[in-house]
């Protein structure tokens, strides 16, 4: 008698708890969700976030506000994100850039956080690196082969405009210098693509290391000639351009990728709400059109795929060890 009563009570409680938890999922998110951009308003990540936010808001049923927390090459925001509290910060989603977040591998940065401190939900966009020369530069009409032949004959003579040390563009160049015999180039550093474009078009430098989305227009305009894509597969926007691996036989992965993260220890049901909303927003044709018009790739990697990708990226950054140069 008592036993059956106990059984009933436990059944009731478990049913109640199930009800409560599903109720949480149903009225989550309760208010506006903050999408944290670790850079200033107006930059590439910020623009992409501001385009994505309305589509995400449509799926979540609440407004999504883009909040810029800038400074420290992203680390002012990332430092905060890694300490987000599952209860207090459950209405926050953060953007984490790969490979930029690996700046912590540089001992000079004195950071205690690692990628293990982030609760990754999934990818957002993926933009492979691309090397380009001027369209009217006759030395390199044969693409990467000509570039490699030229650098083999003239070490350090080829000048390349690239984003600063530690960036994806630099990473791709430095990786090539480590792996390809005789490939040594002079580097002119920038902290934005406008400077790189200006330098290449003016003939100050011979080559640019950048990302596909920034340069497709200059190729279409007939100002620049793509040399190689630093990816395992060709870019859908530049199907005739070979990958670095196709030409040299050595895979060189360079990319600027963005991932979305939530607070550590966020309950599974809330995590799933975010994840489903993100997936649905990424599948929205309106959003896809917007990213496509920027020649940017929507990236849906999640779960163990994303984990593997992140650890591979970490290995690559460690190969170059830019902080030891």
């Amino acid at each position, binding site marked *: 008698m008592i036993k059956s009563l106990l059984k009933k009570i436990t059944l009731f409680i478990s049913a109640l708890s199930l009800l409560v938890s599903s109720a949480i999922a149903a009225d989550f998110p309760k208010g506006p969700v903050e999408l944290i951009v670790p850079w*200033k*308003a*107006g*930059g590439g990540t*910020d*623009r992409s976030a*501001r*385009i994505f*936010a*309305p589509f995400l808001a449509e799926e979540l049923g609440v407004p999504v506000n883009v*909040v*810029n*927390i*800038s*400074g*420290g*090459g992203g*680390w*002012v925001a990332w*430092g905060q994100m890694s300490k987000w509290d599952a209860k207090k910060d459950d209405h926050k989603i953060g953007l984490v850039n790969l490979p930029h977040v690996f700046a912590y591998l*540089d001992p*000079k*940065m*004195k*950071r205690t956080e690692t990628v293990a401190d982030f609760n990754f939900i999934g990818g957002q966009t993926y933009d492979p690196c691309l090397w380009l020369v001027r369209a009217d530069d006759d030395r390199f009409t044969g693409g990467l082969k000509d570039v490699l032949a030229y650098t083999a004959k003239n070490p350090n003579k080829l*000048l390349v405009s690239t984003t*600063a*040390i*530690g960036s994806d563009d630099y990473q791709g160049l430095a990786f090539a210098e480590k792996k390809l015999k005789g490939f040594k180039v*002079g*580097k*002119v*550093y*920038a*902290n*934005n693509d*406008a*400077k790189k*474009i*200006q*330098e290449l*078009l*003016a*003939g*100050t*430098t011979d080559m640019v290391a950048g990302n596909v989305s920034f340069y497709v*227009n*200059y190729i*279409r*305009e007939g*100002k620049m000639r793509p040399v190689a894509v630093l990816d395992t597969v060709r870019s859908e926007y530049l199907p005739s351009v070979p990958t670095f691996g196709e030409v040299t036989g050595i895979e060189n992965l360079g990319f600027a990728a963005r991932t979305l993260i939530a607070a550590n220890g966020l309950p599974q049901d809330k995590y799933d709400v975010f994840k489903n909303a993100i997936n649905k927003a990424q599948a929205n044709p309106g959003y896809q059109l*917007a990213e496509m*018009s*920027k020649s940017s790739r929507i990236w849906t990697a999640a779960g163990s795929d994303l984990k593997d990708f992140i650890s591979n990226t970490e290995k690559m950054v460690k190969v170059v060890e*830019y*902080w030891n140069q």
Partner: protein
Amino acid sequence: MYIFEALSYFDNLFSLGVLFCLLMGVTIGLVIGAIPGLSPPMAIALLIPVSFNFPPTEALILMVSCYAAGMYGGSFSAILIRAPGTSASAASAIEGFELTKKGKAIQAIRISTFASVLGGLISGLVLLLLAPPLAEVALLFGPAEYFLMAILGLTAIASISFGHIFKGLIAGFFGIFLSTVGIDLYSGIPRFTFGSATLSSGIDIMPAIVGLFAFAQGLELSMSKAQETIGGNSKLSWNIWPKFEEIKKVKNSLFRGWGCGLVLGIIPAAGGSIAQWIAYAWEIQKGKVGDQFGKGEIKGLAATEGSNNGCTGTSLIPMFTLGIPGGISAAVILGALVIHGLQPGFGLFKNNPQVVYTVIWGFLAANILMGLLAAVMARGMAHLTIMPKGLLAPLIIIFSIVGTYVNTNNIADIWIMMSFGVLGYLMNKYKFSTGAALLGLILGPIAENGLRDLMVVSRGDPLLYIFQRPLSIALILLTCIIVFYSARQFKWEQKNKKIINR
């Protein structure tokens, strides 16, 4: 002929959508620009999701009008309470606020409006009619030219020290020193960051400006009698349009200011922030005995205000014709172009002339509209000058803090801003030029990176490289001429010090 083609798109302006976007862009730009700490790039970024729902022409008009008005809106707070709303109006804060203190706030705003509106219009006309032929000008600027231009800009320190040349140089060097803080672009080594993540990306210009000018002003006002007003008057004149004689008196200054803005605006990344200082320094050089530079000289204000809006239109030339955005604002506008399926570059003028020319007409119209709206807004804002200091000082301090925080959401930036504020207060008190420190902070990285780029591209032989480039030689000559005249003037002032002081 493209000039006639450009003119033929004028009537596209008269649609409800375009006019609505114009009004919205100008209003948002004026308001955000006027708040210290909030800058035009931020206002434009806020418009990204909105503009995405508009057709390309409307979306772009929304952004360019916000850009033009934001640039101008920054001058209001600069003139009225010495709190520049944008980095391009920092120089205006010096003469503008001194005029306000003399009770000439409305007169200062009148000249500022005239200089800005006409400067923007001229700049817009250059963009409309001469963009294709001027396209390649941006490509004349390489590392050597950036380095030399920064050096040329630094010579302005001599002028903006107002007689305290050694103190001015100390302030300038201090600014350059502060510009070295952060991770070095070339080696990846953190310099003077003391383990702080915020400092590792360098000292931002915005908190520095807000601190040196606005916050310092707030502190200074707190030290004086609470019931006094800045202008010493409690009534305002309402006439926002300048009289013909007023303009005639400053016409040469206006032309110099507009000229600086138009020419320097074309140079990506550096032009806009340098133009105002060069225009201002030029103006001081041209000054006559009896001019009140540094103590409220309307000619100085006319030049700085003319230059910062004079560069708005031309700074869009490299963005439209080459796809090279000169600054963050232009980069966001470029992003909007691309999202709407338009390709920046010469193709834009050939393939989508209706869009690009309508947008430029929109830019011109925005400059006129901004003048009209300013007439309304300036009257409201000018009330700040008849507000008792006891009320105004805390307001400036609050706005400085909130504006700085909203920009980056980084608490550390508030501390940086407040440090600059205390520094600025002390500098003003002991006659060290805050303008010189700011100039060092702005030009330091341009000079440093320019020189290091130059060393790489010239393969360690910069002199030979420089002497092969006519523009570099011209910049060197110009710098020499300025230094020569400054030195002569300095000697003359030393000799006649007694006479002037009497």
